[in-house]
Each structure stands twice: as structure tokens, then as C-alpha cells.
């Protein structure tokens, strides 16, 4: 199997994730796009592990670690999204402008 096949698949998945993060409005769909990007990273790790074969299974171990990190990240992210929903009544990432900087300080 050529090595570029999994690598190009990872590139496509990562860029679809980038598009989703930039273009989606709902905060939960942004988190779903983040999962796509993390999956692309995992695919890279496993592909390079199958290419390099260092005997330590480095890539596969790191892929398992990244899956664990993704679980922690989605837990915290969804807690923040639920907090946003309780405070504002929506999960629109564009309309959540609590941290916006005004041009002239309102004092």
C-alpha cells in the first residue's frame, strides 16, 4: 500500500474539519468537526507507525492516547456548550459575543 493513501485521506478529513469549524454556526457541530480533525491526526499516527515499524508501536500507542484526550476534550466542550445554553438560551457560536471588544470603551 502506498503511504500517501492514508496520508491524503487524513489531509482530506482534516480540511473538512477545518471547513466545519469555520463555517458552522451551532457550537455542537463545531465540536463534531473538531472530532473529524482529531481522527485525521490519528490516521496519520497509525499510518506512520505502519511505515516506520520501530518495534515499540509508538504511533498506535499515541493514537490511543489521542482518543483518550478527545474524550476529555468533548466532555469539557459539551459542559461549556450546556453552560452557554443555560445562560443565553441558544448555542449559536456567532451570537455569543460576551467577550467582544468595543471600539470605544463604554466605561
Amino acid at each position: 500500500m502506498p503511504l500517501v493513501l492514508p496520508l491524503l485521506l487524513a489531509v482530506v478529513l482534516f480540511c473538512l474539519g477545518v471547513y466545519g469549524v469555520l463555517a458552522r454556526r451551532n457550537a455542537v457541530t463545531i465540536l463534531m468537526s473538531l472530532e473529524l480533525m482529531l481522527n485525521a491526526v490519528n490516521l496519520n499516527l497509525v499510518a506512520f507507525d505502519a511505515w516506520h515499524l520501530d518495534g515499540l508501536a509508538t504511533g498506535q500507542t499515541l493514537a490511543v492516547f489521542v482518543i483518550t484526550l478527545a474524550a476529555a476534550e468533548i466532555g469539557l466542550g459539551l459542559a461549556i456548550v450546556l453552560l452557554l445554553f443555560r445562560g443565553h438560551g441558544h448555542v449559536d457560536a456567532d451570537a455569543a459575543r460576551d467577550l467582544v471588544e468595543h471600539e470605544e470603551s463604554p466605561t
Partner: protein
Amino acid sequence: MTTALFAVAGAVAVAAAVMVVTSRRIVHAALWLVVTLGAVAGCFGALHAEFVALVQILVYVGAIVVLVLFALMLTKAPTNPLPNLTTARSPFAAAVAVVLALLLGSGVVFAFGNQKIQPVPAGSAETIGTSIFKTWVLPFEILSVLLLAALIGAIALSQRKKED
């Protein structure tokens, strides 16, 4: 044989990922995410990383997608198609994604264009377990502390009372 399997699983993953980022129904997008993650697990299997594939199915499909569906339910996500689910700047986002894909893809092809991989059956739980508990035991312990911190953080965030 493995190349054909990988190509089929990869095509399914890409098609389902396109549906994830373009579907106008949020719940459908979450269910397409299941298809994407399962197809990526199939790619792991074709690369002889069976343990990673099983962990992917257990953790991603079993836990993360269920969490996402719960969050959609708790945030009262509508099930009818929404016209404004993507922002008005989605053409710019598409342009950024295409440019990034061209850059990364040309880089990958330039660097690894003529490399071959011969996946060997080295992805069993025994191999990974030996590697984790011999070589990677310190990151493993740090990761468990991080999971505990994330758990406490999620509880603290969801217990916060709204001031005034």
C-alpha cells in the same frame, strides 16, 4: 487486498464527513459522524491496528457520539432542516479549507510520494499493552490525571450557579 479495503473505507469516511459538515439537520450530522468514525476504524483495521480500531469504536462511537446526541437533546436542537446552520462566510471557509488541502496534500506527496508500507500484524492488544506499560507508562499516568482533571472540570462547570 488491504489497499482495496482501505480505499473503500476511506471513500466512505470522506463521503460521510462531507455530510457531517454540510448536512442541514443537526441530528443527521451527528449520525453521519458515526459512519465517519466507523469507516476510520475500518481504515485502522486495514492498517493492522486492530486494537486502535476497537478502541475507536468503543470510545468514539460508543461514548463520544452518545455525548454529542445528549448535548443536542439538552440544547433543544430542532430536528427539521435549518437554512442558517452555516454562516454567511462559508465560501471563505471553503476557500481556506481547499487552500490548506492543496498545501498539505502537495507537501505529503512531495515528501512521501514513493514510500510503501507493508502493514504487519503488530496491532494486537498484547503489543500495545506491553508498549504502554513498559515504554509509555509515565504519559499513561499523566493521562489518567488529566482525565480526572477533565472530570472535575466538567462537574464544576455544570454545577456553577448563575450570579445575580
